[in-house]
């Protein structure tokens, strides 16, 4: 720590000394030049009282190089003007008190002028720098204030620092990417240390001799990440100055982050939880508010359809069937929407059990009995399928969707065949229909969310969710859904492939005791 500070101070001193010497040398040259001019003027034009000429190099030196060169040039000027203008020409002796007074006055004026010039210069420089810094900072804080997220704030910090140092700036560990790409290998350990708060900031050189400043965005907390700034090959005063400017910018940014981020984080969390609550409430209310009346409608319809008074009239009796079918369809649509919501929120969590594949097929066909009413359904189920590990309800739901589609896209009376068979390391449940089939293009797109074959849009109702839901449920269970069709009008086969579990079910004999 101490050693580093010393080395930092030594450098600017040397540089300052060098600048002073250069200033003195140039000032003396200027005095010499003035002397030449004065001599020429005296010789050719006959100007005898020109000592004031020597104020010019003093002013230039004062403005350009500072007080010391100005004083040196003033002294040189006094001596030379005495030599050039005053009594006993071309000697360094001063003849009268009048002349001595003049020289002293000249000296005072020169010192004063050099000081004024130097001040003016310094003020101009500072003012210019201030202005630039102010406008940079202003732009920076405007960006900070307008940043919609912490990530934006970090981008703003990065850009601002990069602009400030005109070199590479890396922000690490704050934004999501947090990658240390671009940090030279040998500096990564240092970045890690700074992140872990082992020393607040570090200055290190990489292999190519570039100086890196590594520090936290905010000294108070590691939450805002770490910056690594490539300062290039700087040293001494420039380095100290650069650090100061980076400190200032980061102090500002950290303050903004502290202020904004806390407020924003709270805000975001609040909004998220409100959205979540709203969605839960909506789903809950869809589930409850829509299904409860549906349960009443459906229940009432089943009673009506059984009532002797209505059974006598074929037409009235048929109407009770309509009420029931439509209520059931509505119920299925609601179920599909709820399933779609679950899938979109990636909350499909299969409850794995050992299941008899045949049971799934029977349950799905039974649940879709009324939907399949217009079609002769044949079941070809292998009676000796391996049992599989899957969520029975989700697989059934998927199969029901596929059965729905088969019924929907088949002409009335067209047969539907459901098969269950082993196939290598999986059990395949397939629904074969003789319906509308699929074109090559449709086959590629089918199963996308909300995809519906355009040629069916006008004739068949549907949401385009069915196969998408089926696919989502089956893939959540480690399986896949495959769609086959020979072409338009040639029927389709949709298959659910359920993988056999790696765990082997125990031999039948071992448990029958």
């Amino acid at each position, binding site marked *: 720590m101490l050693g580093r500070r010393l080395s930092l101070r030594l450098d600017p001193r040397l540089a300052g000394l060098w600048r002073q010497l250069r200033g003195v040398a140039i000032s003396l040259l200027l005095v010499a030049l003035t002397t030449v001019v004065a001599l020429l003027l005296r010789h050719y034009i006959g100007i005898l009282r020109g000592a004031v000429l020597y104020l010019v190099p003093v002013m230039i030196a004062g403005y350009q190089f500072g007080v010391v060169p100005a004083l040196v040039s003033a002294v040189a000027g006094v001596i030379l003007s005495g030599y050039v203008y005053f009594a006993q020409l071309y000697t360094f002796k001063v003849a009268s008190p009048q002349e001595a007074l003049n020289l002293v006055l000249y000296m005072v004026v020169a010192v004063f002028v050099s000081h004024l010039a130097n001040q003016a210069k310094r003020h101009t420089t500072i003012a210019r720098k201030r202005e630039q810094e102010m406008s940079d900072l202003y732009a920076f804080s405007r960006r900070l204030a307008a940043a919609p997220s912490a990530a934006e704030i970090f981008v703003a910090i990065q850009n601002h620092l990069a602009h400030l140092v005109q070199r590479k700036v890396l922000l690490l560990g704050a934004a999501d990417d947090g990658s240390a790409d671009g940090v030279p290998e040998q500096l990564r350990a240092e970045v890690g240390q700074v992140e872990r708060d082992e020393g607040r900031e570090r200055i290190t050189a990489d292999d190519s001799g570039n100086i890196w400043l590594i520090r936290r965005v905010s000294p108070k907390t590691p939450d805002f990440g770490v910056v690594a700034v490539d300062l290039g090959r700087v040293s001494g005063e420039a380095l100290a100055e650069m650090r100061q400017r980076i400190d200032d910018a980061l102090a500002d940014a950290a303050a903004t982050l502290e202020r904004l981020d806390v407020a924003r984080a709270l805000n975001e969390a609040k909004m998220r939880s409100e959205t979540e609550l709203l969605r839960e409430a909506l789903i809950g209310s869809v*589930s*409850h508010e829509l*299904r*409860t*009346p*549906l*349960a*009443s*409608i*459906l*229940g*009432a319809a*089943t*009673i009506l*359809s*059984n*009532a002797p008074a209505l*059974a006598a009239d074929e037409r009235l*009796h*048929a109407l009770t*069937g309509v009420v029931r079918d439509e*209520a*059931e369809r509505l*119920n299925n649509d609601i*179920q599909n929407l*709820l399933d779609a919501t679950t899938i979109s929120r990636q909350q499909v969590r299969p*409850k794995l*059990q*050992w299941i*008899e594949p*045949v*049971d*799934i097929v*029977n*349950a799905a*066909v*039974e649940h879709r*009995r*009324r939907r*399949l*009413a217009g079609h*002769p*359904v*044949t*079941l070809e*189920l*292998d*009676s000796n399928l391996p*049992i599989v590990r899957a*969520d*029975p*309800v989700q697989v*059934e739901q998927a199969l029901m969707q596929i059965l729905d589609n088969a019924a929907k896209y088949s002409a009335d009376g067209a047969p539907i065949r*459901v098969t269950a068979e082993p196939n290598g390391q999986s059990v395949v449940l397939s629904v074969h229909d003789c319906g509308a089939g699929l074109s090559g293009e449709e086959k590629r797109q089918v199963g996308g969310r909300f995809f519906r074959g355009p040629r069916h849009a006008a004739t068949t109702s549907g949401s385009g969710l069915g196969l998408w839901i089926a696919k989502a449920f089956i893939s959540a269970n480690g399986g896949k859904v495959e769609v086959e069709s020979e072409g338009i009008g040639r029927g389709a086969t949709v298959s659910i492939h359920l993988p056999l579990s790696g765990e082997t*079910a*125990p031999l*039948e004999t071992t*448990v*029958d*005791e």
Partner: protein
Amino acid sequence: MNEIPSSVLVIDDEVQIRRFLRTGFELDGFTVQEAETGAEALRTVTLQPSDLVILDLNLPDMDGADVLERLRAWSTVPLIVLSVRANEAEKVRLLELGADDYVVKPFGMAELLARAHSAMRRQLRAARGEPMVKFGPLAIDFAARAVFINDQRVALTPKEYRLLQVLAQHSGNVVTHQFLLREVWGNEHLDDTHYLRIFVRKLRRKIEADPTQPRILLTELGVGYRLVMSDPPAAVAIGSPDAPAATGSA
């Protein structure tokens, strides 16, 4: 069906559901009591015990499971739960708490009545101690531990017989996997549902005409098994005589 009308207590906070249930049960010969809240239900059932309870799980004042638990503390009244879809775990929990069966909303009246009658019969049978039960072509002689299909004796292993026996004792109503595993294999095998799958398959081969199209030993996906008294499509068809059954059963 009954000489003296049976009484049913319908516990549901939805007035329209209560209305159609009242009509449905009255047409079936029940006298109907209603309760809107869990507290009211518990009061009613204490003051005026009924022969059957229909319990909706969504009650405004208390959890349906609480009502069930408190009721089961002193009463064995047959009880059917009205449940919502896609919550198999909850169904299992309620069955374990002592519900006799459930129906999933929306449901047909016939389905509910079939479940209700099964639950009531079970209690009747338990009281009488019937030595013999018949399920279509299947007959079980509990005294002789013998099983017949179309009067032909079927040889079952002891575990197969025990499984069938437990199901028969709850005939018409669902029996959970856990209950069957506990009763047949013991407490240490509660998670071994693959035992059940294999035994049910073997049992079906012996008692079903087509084991891939069971008509007697049915599966309730994710919940358990149900031994039915008659062909299930016929039972459900009471409420929907216009619905043609799916063909394909061989």
